[in-house]
C-alpha cells in the first residue's frame, strides 16, 4: 500500500465515522446536523479522490464501508455506553481479517484507470483538494 492510499482511505474512514457518531448524537440534539452533512460530504469526496489514483473501487469501498461499521460499533461503546454482543465482537474480528486480506491482495494499479481518464490528470492530487477536507 502506498502512503497516499493509506492517507486517503484513513481520511475517508475518519470523516464517515465522525459523521455517523454525530448522526447518532443529533437524535438528542439537532445542533450536530450541520456537522453530519459536512462530514458525510467530505467522506464521499475523499472516496472519490481514491478513484483518481486508480484504486480498484470494489476493494476501496469494502475497506471504507466495513472499517466504518467496525469503528462506529467500538466507539458507540465509548461515547454512548452501548454494549457489544458476542456476535458483534466476532463480526469486528472478521471485518479486520477481511480488510487485511483486501488491502494486502490489491495494489493501486490493479484497476483500469485508463478508460476512466488519467489518474493523475489535470488537477494534481493533494493540491488543495485535501486542504478542503481537513
Amino acid at each position: 500500500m502506498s502512503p497516499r492510499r493509506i492517507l486517503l482511505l484513513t481520511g475517508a474512514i475518519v470523516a464517515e465515522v465522525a459523521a455517523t457518531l454525530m448522526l447518532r448524537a443529533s437524535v438528542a440534539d439537532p445542533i450536530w446536523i450541520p456537522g453530519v452533512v459536512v462530514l458525510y460530504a467530505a467522506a464521499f469526496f475523499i472516496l472519490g479522490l481514491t478513484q483518481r489514483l486508480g484504486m480498484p473501487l470494489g476493494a476501496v469501498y469494502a475497506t471504507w464501508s466495513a472499517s466504518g461499521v467496525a469503528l462506529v460499533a467500538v466507539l458507540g461503546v465509548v461515547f454512548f455506553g452501548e454494549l457489544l454482543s458476542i456476535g458483534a465482537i466476532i463480526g469486528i474480528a472478521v471485518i479486520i481479517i477481511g480488510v487485511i486480506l483486501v488491502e494486502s491482495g490489491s495494489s493501486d494499479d490493479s484497476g483500469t484507470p485508463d478508460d476512466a481518464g488519467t489518474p493523475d490528470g489535470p488537477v494534481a492530487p493533494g493540491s488543495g483538494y485535501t486542504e478542503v477536507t481537513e
Partner: protein
Amino acid sequence: MSWVWLALSILSEVAGTLCLRASAGLQRRVWFIPVVISYTAAFLFLSRTLAAGMPLGVAYGLWAACGVALVCLLSRVIWKDSLTRRALIGIGCIVVGVILVEAG
C-alpha cells in the same frame, strides 16, 4: 414495505458509488450531479426504511453488506476491475462481518 425502501436505498447507494468511479476521481464534473442525487436518495430511502419499522442494525448491516458486494460485482462487470482471489475472499469476510456486527 420496509424491504422495498431498503432495496431502493441500496440501489441508489450503489449507483452513487459507481458514478464516483465514472467521474475518474471527481475530474469529470458532469458526474457530480448523479453522485449527489444518488447519495441523497440513498439516505432518504434509508430513513423511509427505518420509518417503516425495520430496526437500524438490520437495515444498516444489510445496506452496507449488499452495497459492498454489488459495487464489487458491478465494477468488475463494467470496468473489468481485476481483484485477486485474496481480495475477493477478504470482501466475503467483510460482508459476513458487517452483518454480524449489525445483527449481533
